[in-house]
């Protein structure tokens, strides 16, 4: 006898029901007209992918459906780009570079763009088992059917993921094995200032700002498609691309070695440029992107509205590659920033906006922008304005207190080094009293915790400098205790990796053992301090980053070896393996010491010698000598020009929204900025001419 109670037996409310038929509105995917090329008609894989999504972690990473997502219509004559971030969706989705290019391409009549991210290992396994390829998240199109797969490279440890994504797309991982029907594999982003380790795998790299060059590339690829994209024409299109300013095609260059040293890098053909210059967008005001920032359905990093207020930085911190390669400073007009904030908050429903740049408190229009953001119609008193990369001074903290609506969880400062001597070497000219003033200001205004960022393994660093980090942290906590018994400080320490196109590009990186010794020294010393939390970056990962950061083409064998041995997601501690890398170096007959720990000579030909970030090599060398002499260099935006090359080389200037220097001095250094100098500074809205190198 059944114990089941029939529906009618139960007491409950009944309401009119309709059956589920026809109530399943599937998102339609557009059909594509059959084309001659690519042979495979681009067709959505959604039906196969939705079958396996119930089996994987966080399936919302793979569905797209973000607000701001575009569903472009593919067509034979259109150039199709797949912008791919070689790490998880959570890390890659917020990337502003990819979002900007995604919009710019989709605004064109002759091109379409979709996006893709590295699938987590569980999905990758299922895809491979079922013979399914990497796919776009927008319309779930197979990656291999796009004309271009373009990667953003922001970190060295994602290199093996690039290979994995290319392979998963069904494309041969090596450049020399690809044919005309395969997508062109491209990469941009900060790591491409030394792209040599990836030369075997990437058809072309883009140096600098992408807004303009992405259109130039589209033109070349469109013409190639129109000409039939016949067998044997792949080299021809790459040669055409090599003539586009800012595009570097490694296969068009011959590298000559003598022993371990590079003795020559030359183009193989006379029409290929000897040196590739980065691209620079002169006026950010002409590029108010992203206009429709993607709002993901699932949680990602930086899950808030992001508005870029300026590009470039002239502070001159010698360890900072971003600051060197993105010069000159180009500010967005304050009025445009305001409208992007207002429009963005209204459209997205976010309650937090971050004003992004390398040093946002130095934005000359910061006060008017912040005041506007706090009083806009869409700010109902719940909107927070975030200022990443806070300047170390009390003025900035005061502003942060104004704008963070009751969310005083933590404030982050980056003094970077523990002693004044060390900070002179790295040119981060923050005095101890600046830091203490900022920290006092923070604790006294309700923050209970500050985060302090430091580097260890810097040039000329001694144990006095290293232990100076602990001393600074202890003093900060001491100040905090005056205001709150539970005051604490988080101390984060990363091992220093010398980067190309910085004054420290000649410096031999500290060994893993030495970095670990310094970290242990700090850990033991800080262990006695109440309220201090100590975090550090794994020196094993720092070692691998160091090998790749200044590596050359010979590392291609190593990257491929690590990937073939399962070394994916190397940025993730659960996947990272130092031994995979060191063993692969051994198999390739390459020396870790040569690539990571060796000091370079002035006359050495560096692997990136044929590329240019606009900086004169002799400027960088002089800055390296000044560093060793412990001589600092002031912010050139407000003092006379040092002729680093970034402005003069491109015929453009620092573009600022206001002629008034920031209160508190650049980076809170308190320097006197009233004098000005022979600085090439253009005031907006005057348009600076665009240089065509």
């Amino acid at each position: 006898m059944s114990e089941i109670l029939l529906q009618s037996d139960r007491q409950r409310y009944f309401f009119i029901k309709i059956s589920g038929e026809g109530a399943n509105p599937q998102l339609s995917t557009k059909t594509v007209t059959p084309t001659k090329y690519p042979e495979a008609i681009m067709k959505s894989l959604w039906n196969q992918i939705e079958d396996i999504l119930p089996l994987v972690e966080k399936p919302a990473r793979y569905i797209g459906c973000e607000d701001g997502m575009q569903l472009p219509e593919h067509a034979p004559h259109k150039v199709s780009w797949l912008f791919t971030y070689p790490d998880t969706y959570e890390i890659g989705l917020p990337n502003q570079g990819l979002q900007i290019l995604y919009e710019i391409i989709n605004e064109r009549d002759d091109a379409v763009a979709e996006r893709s991210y590295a699938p987590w290992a569980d999905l990758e396994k299922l895809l491979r088992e079922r013979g399914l390829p990497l796919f776009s998240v927008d319309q779930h199109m197979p990656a291999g059917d796009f004309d271009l797969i373009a990667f953003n490279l922001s970190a060295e440890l994602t290199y093996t993921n690039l290979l994995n994504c290319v392979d998963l797309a069904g494309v041969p991982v090596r450049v020399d094995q690809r044919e005309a029907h395969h997508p062109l594999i491209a990469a941009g982003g900060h790591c491409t200032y030394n792209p040599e380790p990836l030369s075997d795998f990437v058809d072309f790299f883009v140096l600098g700002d992408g807004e303009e060059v992405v259109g130039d590339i589209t033109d070349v690829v469109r013409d190639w498609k129109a000409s039939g994209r016949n067998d044997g024409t792949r080299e021809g299109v790459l040669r055409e691309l090599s003539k586009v300013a800012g595009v570097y095609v490694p296969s068009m260059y011959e590298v000559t070695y003598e022993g371990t040293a590079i003795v020559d890098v030359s183009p193989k053909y006379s029409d290929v440029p000897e040196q590739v210059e980065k691209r620079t967008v002169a006026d950010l005001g002409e590029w108010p992107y992203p206009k429709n920032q993607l709002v993901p359905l699932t949680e990602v990093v930086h899950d808030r509205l992001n508005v870029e207020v300026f590009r470039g930085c002239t502070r001159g911190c010698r360890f900072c590659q971003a600051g060197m390669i993105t010069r000159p400073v180009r500010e967005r007009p304050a009025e445009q920033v305001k409208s992007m904030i207002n429009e963005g908050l209204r459209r997205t429903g976010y309650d937090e906006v971050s004003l992004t740049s390398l040093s946002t408190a130095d934005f000359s229009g910061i006060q008017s922008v912040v005041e506007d953001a706090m009083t806009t119609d869409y700010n109902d008193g719940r909107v927070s304005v975030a200022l990443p990369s806070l300047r170390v001074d009390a003025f900035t903290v005061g502003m942060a207190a104004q704008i963070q609506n009751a969310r005083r969880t933590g404030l982050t400062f980056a003094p970077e080094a523990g002693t004044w001597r060390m900070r002179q070497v790295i040119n981060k000219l923050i005095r101890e009293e600046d830091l203490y003033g900022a920290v006092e200001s923070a604790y006294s205004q309700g923050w209970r915790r500050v985060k302090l960022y430091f580097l260890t393994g810097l040039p000329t660093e001694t144990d006095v400098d290293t232990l100076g980090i602990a001393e600074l942290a202890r003093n900060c906590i001491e100040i905090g205790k005056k205001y709150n018994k539970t005051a604490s400080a988080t101390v984060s320490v990363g091992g220093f990796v010398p980067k190309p196109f910085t004054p420290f590009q000649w410096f031999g990186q500290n060994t893993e053992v030495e970095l670990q010794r310094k970290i242990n020294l700090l850990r033991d010393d800080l262990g006695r301090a109440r309220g201090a939390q100590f975090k550090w970056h794994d020196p094993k990962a720092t070692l691998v980053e160091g090998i790749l950061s200044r590596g050359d083409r010979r590392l291609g064998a190593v990257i491929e070896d690590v990937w073939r041995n399962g070394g994916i997601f190397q940025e993730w501690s659960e996947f990272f393996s130092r031994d995979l890398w060191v063993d692969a170096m051994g198999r390739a007959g390459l020396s870790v010491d040569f690539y990571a720990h060796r000091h370079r000579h002035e006359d050495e030909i560096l692997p990136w010698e044929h590329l240019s970030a606009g900086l004169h090599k002799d400027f960088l060398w002089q800055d390296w000598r000044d560093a060793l002499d412990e001589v600092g260099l002031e912010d050139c935006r407000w003092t006379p020009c040092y002729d680093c090359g970034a402005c003069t080389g491109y015929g453009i200037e620092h573009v600022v929204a206001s002629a008034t220097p920031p209160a508190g001095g650049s980076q809170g250094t308190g320097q006197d900025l009233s004098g000005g100098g022979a600085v090439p500074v253009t005031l907006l809205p005057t348009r600076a001419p665009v240089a065509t190198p």
Partner: protein
Amino acid sequence: MTRENPSRVRLRYAKHGKVRFTSHRDMARIWERSIRRVSLPVAYSEGYNPRPKLHFGLALPTGFESEGEFVDIDIVAEVVLTANAAEAAAEHERLSQAGESQQPQILDLEVMRQRLDEATPDGISVEALVEIDRKETSLQQAVTSCSWEFTTELDHDALQRVVDMTLAAGSLLLDRERKGKQMTDDIRPQILDLHVVDGPRLRAELGTQPRALRPAEFLQAIDMPSKETVRVLRTHQWITNNVGEPAREPLVAGEPATANTEVCAV
């Protein structure tokens, strides 16, 4: 006269297609953003980190679709709620004739429903938005069972055999974890209804009190194929009327958006 206390509205929505792969947590954030986008005058919690006062019903497992999802939303006290435009206009007229010095904001729930429907992602459709009594039992406590529809690869006869065997069973034991401890529960009493409908699909009504029998546990207990090949749709959430006669029905206040409104209130 403006009210002293916030009022509460209940929203019913459906979730179909790709967006079914979002989690319960994802949905909470989606609602917070959607509510901000349409400037719904939601009440906020007090304290250090104020959050909008949203009250969610029983979590829908990630990957499942639904025609009956609910959220309760507290609306700030100063707002007068109406169910349609005519009523809104009448309320305006009444207030101005009464010479109220401070005109309260009037919120037309049907207009708001449409705006929320537009502000939510594709695949989320806002079906109804009505005012409810703040004293009503929370969604989590009120619901006593849910109806589910399972689309599988089995044919009608095979499904009928599953139904017959399940219904004939005096008990169905299931090993499951509860607060870190392994328990063996008889879930048979929680299967309140089970039959095959055209499609063919399996329809089941599963109890939710005191502890919900989850669709995945149900499938495991009746030895159905893996979750990969089963597509699950929540069609209804039910409450038990202990009084014995129907009370007022909240979701059809004003004109309902569609005909398939259903139970969910005391």
